[in-house]
């Protein structure tokens, strides 16, 4: 039973023996896809990116010669431009039912995986090593956001020794030099893709993909602008999971653009009517770093109990400015590469992880100020070393601005480490304090 002050959170059954050898793609299709399709039509659209991601997984299963492995912070546009489909092993950890994921993490530990290894990558160690996932034609990897990703590269290299990998060295800085460095590497990346897949890069196709990508970022920018309005028109939980899947996996596709247009129209309508998400907005918080993939009802609890809406979250706010203006019908290869470099360098989680701690600090200050937050919640995945080492300074710098920050340890994927009710018990006094402060003002 997982409850806090009468609020019922999701419960799990870890006593059942899980068969981890089942086809994970079929399982996701059946359980997650099936669940989405069974929902009422008026809410089904919200989950469309998830359905699209599942369809891509199914496509990979059926078309092994089109499968390109991709790290979750390597922008997918390159793959769409090359007319292939990306397979992101780590994405399974976002989508899989919790009990399965935990069983996979345990299996990874049985293989000798260090206990502290982040479940994002550790959750797929066993399926990779036991070769239960599709064989890739090519592998695009990178070394952001963290050492876990570099270590994951070892897993892929050892699992698929005959498949050459393309590895993007993510830069440390955010200057023009860093963009150029990334663009130069992406040029090498396209040659690699041509060599590995036998497909020739079609510039028009690349233009179209980058146009869709830029449009998606424009839309998310507009949606974010609307979230600055009080009451915030978008509830925290309903959209968070989907938006993160969309931006980690689907940028460059037309279907994502259509979804975001609907999302924006919905938000605009709410703003026009002066209505918020589900419940009355009393507190505005910035939720930074990890979110409990296993149970979004923590956000429902925050809203119900404290009227606290997470108006900005680290992993669903990937772009900070609208993308630069460009005429996509005539854009040159170099211009497109530059845009794709910007996209990679600003990938959420990647951006804060690859760079200096000041990027993390400044991004958080910016979000809190722009979104008029009453407080910030750093929910740090317990193994996330670089971000934990940025948190204390962020807290101090936010305090200088009069914005309190809670530092809370979580495991993004595994409720056995920190459960929803434990999270609620940490959040409760903090949110109470924010309410008192607000009332006193």
């Amino acid at each position, binding site marked *: 039973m997982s409850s806090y002050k009468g609020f019922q959170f999701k419960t799990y059954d870890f006593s059942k023996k899980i068969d981890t050898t089942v086809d994970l793609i079929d399982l996701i299709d059946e359980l997650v896809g099936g669940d989405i399709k069974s929902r009422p039509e008026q809410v089904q659209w919200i989950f469309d990116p998830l359905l699209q991601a599942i369809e891509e997984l199914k496509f990979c299963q059926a078309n092994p010669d089109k499968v390109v492995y991709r790290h979750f912070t390597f922008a997918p546009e390159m793959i769409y431009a090359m007319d292939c489909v990306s397979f992101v092993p780590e994405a399974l950890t976002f989508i899989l039912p919790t009990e399965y994921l935990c069983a996979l993490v345990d299996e990874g530990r049985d*293989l*000798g*995986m*260090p206990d*502290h*290894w982040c479940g994002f990558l550790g959750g797929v*160690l066993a399926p990779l*090593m036991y070769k239960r996932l599709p064989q890739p034609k090519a592998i695009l*990897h990178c*070394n952001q956001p*963290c*050492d*876990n990703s*570099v*270590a*994951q*590269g*070892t*897993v*892929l*290299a*050892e699992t698929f*020794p005959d498949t050459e*990998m393309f*590895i993007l*060295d993510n*830069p*440390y*800085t955010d200057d023009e*030099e860093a963009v150029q*460095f990334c663009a*130069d*590497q992406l*040029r*090498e990346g396209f040659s690699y893709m041509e060599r590995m897949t036998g497909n020739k890069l079609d510039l028009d196709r690349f233009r179209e993909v980058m146009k869709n990508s830029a449009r998606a970022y424009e839309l998310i920018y507009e949606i974010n602008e609307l979230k600055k309005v009080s009451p915030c028109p978008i509830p925290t939980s309903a959209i968070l999971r989907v938006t993160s899947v969309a931006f980690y996996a689907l940028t460059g596709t037309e279907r994502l653009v259509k979804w975001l247009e609907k999302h924006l129209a919905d938000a605009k309508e709410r703003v026009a009517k002066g209505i918020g998400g589900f419940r009355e907005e009393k507190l505005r918080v910035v939720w930074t770093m990890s979110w409990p993939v296993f149970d979004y009802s923590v956000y429902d609890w925050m809203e119900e109990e404290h009227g606290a809406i997470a108006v900005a979250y680290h992993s669903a706010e990937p772009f900070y400015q609208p993308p630069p203006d460009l005429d996509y019908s005539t854009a040159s290869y170099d211009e497109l590469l530059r845009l794709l470099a910007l996209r990679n360098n600003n990938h959420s989680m990647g951006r804060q*992880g690859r760079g*200096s*701690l*000041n990027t993390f600090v400044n991004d958080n200050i910016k979000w809190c100020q722009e979104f008029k937050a009453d407080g910030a919640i750093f929910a740090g995945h*317990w*193994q*996330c*070393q*670089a971000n*934990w*080492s*940025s948190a*204390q*300074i962020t807290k101090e710098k936010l305090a200088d601005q009069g914005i309190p920050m809670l530092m809370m*340890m979580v495991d993004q994927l595994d409720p056995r480490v920190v459960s929803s009710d434990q999270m609620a018990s940490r959040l409760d006094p903090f949110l109470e304090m924010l309410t008192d402060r607000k009332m006193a003002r």
Partner: protein
Amino acid sequence: MGALQTLINYGEGNPNATVGEWKRAGDKVLGYWCSYIPPEIIYAAGALPYRVRGCGATGTDKADHDMSPVCNCSFPRAVLELAHNGTYDYLDGIIGMNGCDHSRRAFELWVERLSPPFHHFVYVPRTQKKASVQKYVDELNKFKTILDKFFGAEINSEDLHESVALYNENRGLLKKVQELFKRDNPPITGTQRHHIVNASVSIPPQELNRLLRELLEELAQMPPSADKKVRIMIAGWVGDDTLVHQAIEDSGGVVVIDNCCFGARSFMDPLQYDPDQQMESIARSYLGRMSCPRMFASFSERFGEIEQLAKEYNVDGIVHTRLQFCDLHGIENVFLNQRKGQMDIPLSSTLVLDYIGQDEGRVRTRMEAFVEQIRG
């Protein structure tokens, strides 16, 4: 005092006695974090390159304020603690790089909290792609320009040339010392060699060359150790600490070789220097030498090196180590274990270490049991 003892003393001291002499002469000392930052360039600028270490730290309270001990490696925390408690106040500056997440953030926190007089971050790519090698060349050129400005004098190609020659001589002499361990009964212990390597990254290179030449003469006179010992290789990371070496050697083993960073990795490969392409050759050489798991997907290469070194040094057993919370060496453990069947040599189960607050008894028991198991 002979060269051996002098080098051991230097290796044990943090700082060692040469630092004081260097400073008294009015010269600068620059700390650097990792072996992917070429000391050749720092030395060519006229400063003593001093690789920062954690030895001497007895706790990590101040470092832990910013770097949670629940997920961060105790080595960089120990280094940061020493910076907090003033041990590194003699440094005129500190150079960081992206070795691992822990050391990168520890450097940044040093800068943020302690405002050293000079600091610079060298970005080092993790691959050898064309664009990445070029990026490292650009980074090294930038580093040189920044040092030129800091010292008010330009590093000319002759300075760099001489510095590279000195450091290559260091490596060659250290390798000669290392090769003595191919003998059945090496004249010194692996613990002593580890101190020598620690000294080698923190004393002036001419002084090191002089002492190493003397040492080689001393060693030529020394009788071989009497009894036959179990020959152990350490693979992984133990930092500048000597506990694991001591535990093995107190149990009747001898550490004949390692692939560690404070170890063979730092001297086995000479820098492949081309005077006509100075920075290019330095960059290529550093990215291509005996690698560290920070380099992307490089395990196979390292496994090959381990196999080869194990053969060359006639190794009886391999002790595999890592520090707690190290992702990079952590995954190495998984695959070394997977491939152990390919080697005809016993491999210990992973010895997970804490740099600070080590449970010495546990390490000694584990090493004793492993040496005993090999002896049969």
